[in-house]
């Protein structure tokens, strides 16, 4: 509500584009006469807090390349829009942070460089499903950095106090939810995060859903498949019986509830540790992490939080070779990866994580969980991620339609399963509008 002139609304979009296209800084230094002595400069755009520590390590180890870190808004909040506009304007950064979920849109918009040639020799360093997520039509478009295999964070002290065993199946989770809420009307086993499509998506993936599958030259879209509906009905039951608190995760309300023990668990990736530890320091020693509850007792099904995060070489870089070298080093050098783990970037997307010091022992982290080596849970979860999950283009349309429809069903008290039917219809329409072939 600015009280400026009428057409500001019309200017909004165009201004956004104009603002994005004005280069914040020259992304690459032009070759100069004393090139041999001057280090070559690369620009790296990321929003991961404290990632400068890993970038510094690279710069120390590479006197000939200097990487400038440009901290930008998180991708879905405008960072990606900035990158797309910069690529269009021909002044993009060299390397950028891109989620697995968004990479298809970068390929679709021609914003990511094909790095197959430079990456192939290092491909075996990385976990297979991560590399698969980077590959489109046989070409590789990114270096996987971190993945988000899910685990269950929970308040072990309160669970123990109530005599609740760690839930191994969803049915046990439901029984635990009843016991928790019965002990205190303000206390809930979990929040139902209506705002968080990646969370719902991870739960669906764990239930065995595959929302998008390439079939010949078309996408088979099944956002409302039976597995997803099974998941939706389960949470519907918890909502109907007032056993989960309906609130956005990572909101002020949710942080308060995590701190004061009104919300006792969270299903999240390994980076969730940094969030809980940072926001509820007073609960140190009272948490534990377990493998996700299962639909079938004894199974080891798991899901991810929006796949993971990668580093992409943006189209138009003048230093393709060095940019690839940087992206590979940052995400495979043990010291650098160790740093990435401790700053909360996520689970390393490496084939072999035994060489990463901070994963073997991290006293400050483990102390928060009463001495438990929580990384063991994520290591196992990571191994069990099903690589048949594929990300389609237009993922933001998927996210907004799932979030909007789930919000609407909570608000209007209509079944959650209908929200996924509506999201399916909206996603199919959005893909067809963009000219993408869809089979339902």
């Amino acid at each position: 509500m600015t009280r400026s002139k009428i057409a500001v609304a019309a200017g909004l979009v165009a201004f956004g584009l104009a603002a994005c296209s004005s280069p914040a800084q020259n992304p690459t230094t032009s070759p100069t006469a004393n090139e041999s002595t001057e280090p070559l400069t690369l620009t790296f755009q990321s929003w991961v807090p404290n990632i400068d520590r890993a970038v510094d390590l690279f710069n120390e180890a590479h006197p000939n390349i200097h990487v400038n870190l440009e901290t930008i808004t998180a991708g879905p909040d405008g960072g990606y829009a900035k990158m797309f506009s910069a690529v269009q304007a021909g002044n993009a950064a060299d390397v950028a942070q891109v989620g697995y979920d968004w990479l298809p849109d970068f390929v679709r918009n021609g914003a990511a460089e094909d790095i197959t040639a430079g990456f192939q020799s290092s491909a075996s360093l990385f976990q297979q499903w991560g590399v698969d997520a980077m590959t489109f039509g046989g070409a590789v478009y990114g270096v996987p950095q971190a993945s988000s295999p899910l685990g269950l964070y929970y308040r072990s002290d309160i669970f123990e106090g109530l005599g609740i065993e760690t839930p191994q199946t969803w049915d046990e989770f439901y029984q635990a939810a009843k016991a928790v809420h019965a002990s205190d009307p303000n206390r809930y086993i979990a929040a139902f995060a209506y705002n968080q499509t990646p969370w719902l998506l991870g739960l669906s993936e764990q239930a065995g859903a595959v929302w998008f599958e390439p079939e010949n030259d078309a996408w088979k879209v099944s956002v409302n498949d039976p597995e997803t509906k099974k998941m939706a009905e389960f949470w519907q039951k918890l909502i109907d019986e007032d056993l989960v608190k309906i609130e956005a995760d990572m909101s002020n309300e949710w942080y308060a509830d995590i701190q004061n023990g009104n919300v006792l668990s969270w299903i999240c990736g390994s980076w969730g540790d940094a969030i809980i530890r940072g926001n509820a320091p007073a609960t140190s020693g009272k948490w534990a992490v377990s493998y996700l509850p299962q639909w079938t007792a004894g199974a080891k099904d798991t899901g991810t939080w929006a796949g993971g995060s990668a580093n992409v070489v943006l189209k138009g870089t003048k230093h393709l070779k060095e940019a690839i070298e940087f992206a590979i080093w940052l995400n495979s050098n043990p010291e650098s990866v160790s740093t990435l783990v401790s700053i909360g970037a996520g689970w390393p997307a490496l084939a072999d994580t035994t060489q990463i010091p901070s994963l073997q022992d991290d006293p400050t982290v483990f102390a928060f969980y009463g001495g438990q080596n929580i990384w063991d849970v994520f290591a196992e979860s990571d191994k069990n991620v099903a690589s048949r999950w594929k990300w389609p283009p237009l993922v933001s349309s998927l996210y907004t339609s799932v979030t909007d429809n789930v919000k609407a069903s909570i608000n209007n008290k209509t079944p959650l399963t209908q929200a996924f039917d509506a999201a399916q219809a909206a996603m199919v329409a959005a893909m067809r509008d963009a000219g993408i072939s869809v089979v339902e």
Partner: protein
Amino acid sequence: MTAAATAITADDVLHGPTDARRRSNKRIGVALLFVLPFTLMFLAFYVAPIIYAIVDSTFAMKSSGLGFGPQQHVFVFLDNYMAALSSPDFQAGLGRLFLFCLIEVPLMVVTAGVLALLLDTGKTLWPRGFRVIYFMPYGVPGVIATLLWGFLYIPSTSPVLQGLSRAGIDLQPLDSGNVLFAIANISLWLYAGYNMIVLTAALNSIPTEIYEAARIDRAGEWAMVWRIKLPLIRPSIVLVTLFTIIGTLQLFVEPLVLSPLTTAINSTFTPNMAAYNAAFAKNNSSVAAAMAVIVAVIAFAMSIGFLKIVNRKGSEAW
């Protein structure tokens, strides 16, 4: 004027008409030089973006197959407008906006007017101090104000709601039935003081002789408000109303910031949010441009309509 005209005539006599023309050309040149910086900036940052948005709104990017091949930039003429206007979400957003206008505009104008008149009676304590206090929220950026109110609107972080709950009143400001009022409250808090200052300035410019004359005629405080103050600050009230209508139609920051806190606000809650979502989440600037143009046209039409109504003959006495 007369002096200048005479001077030119004198020049004509001395140097002949051609010289005068040269001189007047020079004056136009000087005038242009003064106007130039504004014109250039206006064209570059106002007219050009609008034209760009209008042009952009008639194109679309089309993929094929799985969507990983190169895209085509195709001219679709009014398709984006039709898509926006026929979308139930966008229609709902427009409806919500009009409803919000109905709530917010009268509330704002009346609040600002009452505050200004109260401070103008001359009987209030520390009128200057209160003027500053009412104006202060205007200095708080909209995002910050909404975050602050967001804390107050959520039961687990709001001392006010916790107190009310203890007293037996269970208020949920962010429920779908209340959320427009919750947003109206934030806007009111932010901008009522600003509008009050505009009206206060108008009240201060009323000559004191008129009040003296009214008192001689035994007019009371109420009579002075109705017969003197309000009619004389009418142009300022019209201005404040117009600003509020335009500002209201651009409703964006408050619902965007509150959106993660409630199920009652979706990504297309207002047309501007829908445009933002299309541009920055869906990377579809063409649809966003079409939506923005629609909002601009509506704002333009409503402003002109409002001015027509208040300026038509015979409406001078309200």
